[in-house]
């Protein structure tokens, strides 16, 4: 029996668009191929192909598709918009911004294009222009929560936290079910040290029926900052119920003393909470249980005298990656923070956080050798594991610390029964022995405040053991 096709290309194309919209990628793919066989190529089909490839994470395919289609139809706003999105994902911010601007010019009525342009301008540090674009997008589509969220970020970048908070409040009123807006509001309150407001935002969200692990986690963070540890533990427990598969949440709960068998006092551990938790960009790392930023935060709270609120800085963040560490310490009186990394894509992600005074695409040894700045605090989270012998880097850091300055870093630890100083780990990393690290630090002239054994992260459920070192330059050692 042969089955007869009885659909025309146009309705098939509509169907494909619906399926992509509802994330039915598996059904959309064969139908798009069928539509392309039935009809001549068109910008609409190219747009759908690119969108499908984007949804599937096949960025190369999407790029080829869009480049070809835009060459054929340079005046098509939709194609420009998709390529802007794609280029942004690929880290090409300038190209993305050009496409987004083109899309806005070609179709002045598309709020999504305006919002995208706004977010890209924000990435490029043009916050005032970003605010203007996002304002227009919000005015065109007042119920869209992600436009509001973008506008609020842009306002924060302009230093206008009050308007940012108001924007989020309006957004929540317009879209009460938006978890992202609720969390953004709580996070903003935490950043403003207004923990009572953060708890209030969280309770409002709960009263509206929003149940979200991140929300409970942030509420726990705010409560612990207010010294309400029992309530914080309750919040963490609820977070765990919603995200039981997340080792980081599990760690927070264990640390808060909410479950039996927690070994240390809740107070001490709660400091390890970092608010990057709320940031969707970090989901992957957090789901791997990446703990280093929290550990460094805890170490700084323990070592630095920040009780008077005076800022300590400038701070050098070596191997800053996507800026997780800056996020973890963003509510401490530290800064300005300068980040250094080799990867432009990582740096782009770090820039989105709006937490760095400066980001440099450079080798860390090069920066230490050529920049004569004196840094009272130098941090290196999960980067020295890419270096074998630590002697040179330790000497270089020591030279850039003023007396009383601190250097805090993590390395992965060699198994305790190995005699070597350091050796290869997996994934192009090295592991270092505890006694070697201590001896190298001393040889470089540091005072060793602490070298603690810590679990750095969880990989496929196995903890990765490591060392967290806090080294100081003594006041009188020049």
């Amino acid at each position, binding site marked *: 029996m042969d089955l007869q096709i009885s659909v025309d290309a146009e309705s098939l194309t509509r169907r494909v668009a619906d399926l992509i919209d509802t994330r039915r990628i598996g059904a959309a793919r064969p139908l798009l191929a069928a539509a392309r066989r039935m009809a001549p190529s068109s910008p609409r089909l190219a747009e759908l192909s690119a969108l499908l490839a984007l949804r599937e994470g096949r960025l190369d395919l999407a790029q080829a598709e869009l480049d070809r289609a835009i060459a054929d139809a340079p005046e098509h706003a939709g194609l420009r918009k998709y390529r802007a999105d794609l280029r942004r994902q690929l880290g090409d911010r300038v190209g993305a911004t050009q496409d987004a601007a083109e899309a806005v010019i070609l179709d002045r009525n598309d709020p999504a294009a305006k919002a995208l342009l706004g977010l890209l301008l924000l990435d490029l540090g043009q916050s005032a222009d970003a605010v203007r674009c996002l304002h227009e997008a919000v005015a065109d589509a007042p119920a869209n929560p992600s436009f509001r969220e973008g506008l609020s970020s842009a306002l924060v970048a302009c230093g206008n936290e009050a308007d940012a908070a108001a924007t989020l409040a309006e957004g929540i009123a317009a879209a009460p079910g938006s978890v992202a807006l609720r969390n953004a509001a709580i996070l903003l309150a935490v950043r403003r040290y207004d923990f009572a407001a953060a708890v209030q935002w969280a309770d409002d969200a709960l009263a509206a029926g*929003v149940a979200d692990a991140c929300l409970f986690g942030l509420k726990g963070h705010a409560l612990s900052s207010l010294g309400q540890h029992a309530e914080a533990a309750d919040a963490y427990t*609820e977070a765990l119920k919603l995200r*039981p598969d997340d080792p980081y949440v599990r760690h927070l709960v264990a640390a808060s003393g909410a479950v039996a068998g927690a070994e240390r006092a809740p107070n001490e551990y709660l400091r390890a909470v970092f608010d990057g938790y709320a940031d969707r960009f970090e989901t992957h790392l957090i789901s791997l249980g990446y703990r280093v930023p929290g550990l460094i935060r805890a170490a700084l709270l323990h070592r630095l005298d920040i009780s008077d609120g005076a800022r300590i800085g400038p701070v050098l963040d070596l191997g800053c990656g996507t800026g997780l560490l800056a996020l973890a310490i963003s509510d401490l009186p530290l800064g300005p923070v300068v980040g250094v990394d080799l990867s432009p894509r990582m740096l782009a992600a770090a820039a989105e956080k709006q937490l760095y005074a400066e980001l440099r695409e450079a080798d860390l040894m090069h920066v230490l050798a050529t920049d004569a700045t004196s840094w009272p605090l130098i941090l290196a989270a999960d980067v020295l594991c890419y270096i074998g012998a630590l002697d040179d880097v330790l000497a270089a850091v020591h030279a850039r610390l003023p007396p009383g300055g601190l250097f805090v870093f993590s390395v992965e630890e060699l198994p305790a029964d190995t005699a070597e100083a350091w050796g290869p780990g997996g994934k192009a990393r090295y592991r270092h022995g505890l006694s070697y690290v201590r001896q190298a630090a001393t040889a470089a002239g540091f005072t060793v405040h602490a070298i603690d054994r810590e679990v750095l992260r969880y990989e496929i459920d196995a903890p990765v053991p490591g060392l967290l070192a806090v080294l100081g330059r003594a006041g009188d050692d020049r």
Partner: protein
Amino acid sequence: MTVEAALVRLRQGDSAGALALLSSRLPDAAAEQSACDAALGMVLLAEDRPAEALVMLRAAVALGDISPATLLNLALAEDRAGEPNRARGLMHELERRLPDWDEPPLRIAESLRAAGETAAAEAAYTRALEIDPRRIEALVALGALMVVRGAGAEAQGLLLRACGIAPGNAEAWDALGLALMLTDEANLAQTAFAEAQRLAPRTLDFALHLVDAAIAAGAGEAELARLEQLGQHDPLNVALLMAQGALAEKLGRRAAAIDALEAAVALAPDEKLPAAWLGSTLARTDRPREAEAALARAMMLDPDNAQLVSNHAAVLIRLYRHAEAHAALTALIARDGPQVAALCNLANATVSLGQQEAAVATARQAIALQPDAVLPWRALCNSLPYRDGTSATELLQALRSCAALLPRQAMAAFANTPHPDRRLRIGLLSGNLRTHPVGWLTIAGFETLDPTAFDIVCLGRNAAPDPIALRFAAVASEWHETDSLTDAALAAHARALGIDILIDLGGYGDQGRLPACALRLAPVQVKWVGMQNHSTGLAEMDWFITDAIETPPELEHGYSERMLRLPDGYVCYSPPPNAPAVGPLPALANGYVTFGCFNNLAKITPRVIATWADILHRVPGARLVLKTHQFSDPPTAALIRAAFAGHAIAPARIVLRGSSGHRAFLAEYNDIDLVLDPFPYAGGLTTCEALWMGVPTLTVPGEIFASRHSASHLTNVGLADWVAPDLAAYVAMAVAKAADLDGLAALRAGLRARTKTSRLCDAPRFGRHLGAALRHAWRDWCARTTPCTTGAAG
């Protein structure tokens, strides 16, 4: 001349042209007339107009044309016009006259085959092949007949010859593949089917046969990849998508199956088969809304298909559209007569409309039609607990009859190490390890089970992960998908996993796998939540988790299992994280009392209605709010209103509310002063939710397990004074509680906090109790398995 020209056209495939030529000419002699008639007859036969052909060919013969070709055509026309005996007589005559001509025996064989006389057909094909051993039609047809009677090896010889002679004949390759499947040569069959598919890529049967062969050869995944690849080159080939759907479903990859079938329906929206397949595949998922739409579409394309109507009704039941299901099934039975599947679905729809007696009668009607089938007994066992007056003895009897019919087969003895104190592997068997009553009432217990003593393995479905499914996944060391496994395969799988104690959390429910337990998945089998309305009646179910309120010793006789009686309640409730706040007692603002019941309509019997009417008469001004999915349907709501009106209750006093989201559902307890529990089937999770919302439930427990849930929950939050000993007390207590607004308000204000700290929600305590009960069951097995060593281990 004309005749010859016409025949040339016919050979070129232009039968219409031939017909035109022949009809336009007036013959001038009888001979010419007969030749003309014979040719016309042949052309009409080719045009599939056998009645007209018959007239022309008879005329030709009457005019003296008795050439073999004309006679054979006449025979074919007779055969196709419905005169097979006359046809075969003529053919036999020709066969006798021209013993070297293979055409007559071939045509005889085809006529016999069409009439279902396969043995005689085979003999005739054989005669045709004796004359011409290379006659392809005979080879393929005879081979196919042999396949049908299971003679694989014999068929292969013929079909190999056919493929050699006519390598472009797709039917021959397909038949060869089928013959190879019969001798378990799936690899070779795959090659044969692939050739058939290459020759006729859009023929669905060939693609489906290839799917079967690939599965049999253990090459399902490779075939799936191949189909996807083929689809990229031939995106308008619906058969490929259908095969992809069928294969993905068989490989347990249901989401991929649905995607492929959805694409097939989108391309061929007017074909019956894709729509029916998509509908029935969706019906096996927790996407009943989509299943309903797909099945409705399939029914439109294929209105006579009773199976579709019945499946559609089953999906409507899952969507709580019971009244529509009831109407559709009643109409189907009126049209096609009583059918077991339709009657069973009808029983389920009927009980959910609150017509418990009728449901039991319908189930019994299905049993009478097919007394040894499981399904009708399941329908009866699903109806009886709701019916007023069902005794534990009657229910157990039905449950035992049902369980006794479940298929069993010999299985190997268990090799689990009978050490009483070792860490145990606990298997959780259920399709509902998710946000569902099973999840809300059990997850906290599993989370608090000592992980050093118990290792949890989920035997469930890979449904979309919801918060509670994530919790099950986090607490389990392994998660196994059981959807695509038959009961026997599931039992083998569980045994291979080394499950020590199997806990059934599905029963005979929607996604339940209780029938697999008849094959024993583990040496110790335990029944817990999940269609746990009473005993399972299953001889292989060893234990039943309960408590002293649910199953006091004097009611134990109603169960086939031994009791694992937990010290507090038999479940541990996990309250939802986003429940609305508890409001003030509504009576204080309203000035009248509002009774409520948010239980399923199936639990509301005529006697329940009469009793509630009695209470309303005794509490003037009071109202009753009933909320359940079924009241979204206005005719159903009207029936219930009429029932109350029959007890002289003014319509304004009865408020009926339909479906809402879960949070809105909880919020509506802020309109209720106290809950009246239905009977005999009490509230379970519903009672817990009411407590969480600050509203107590007045209950009257009976004999069967399901009638005692509320009594257990209320006792465990310290509200034993809300459990009535009998119906008279139930009425009197309702009246008394309704008169004590201060008492109700005070109770309400503290009830959530009280519930939170009560035994109903004390997860660590519950986990210890559950662990002890499971250990007890295990030690019992060890003691019976190795009496000597356990004595020593004591």
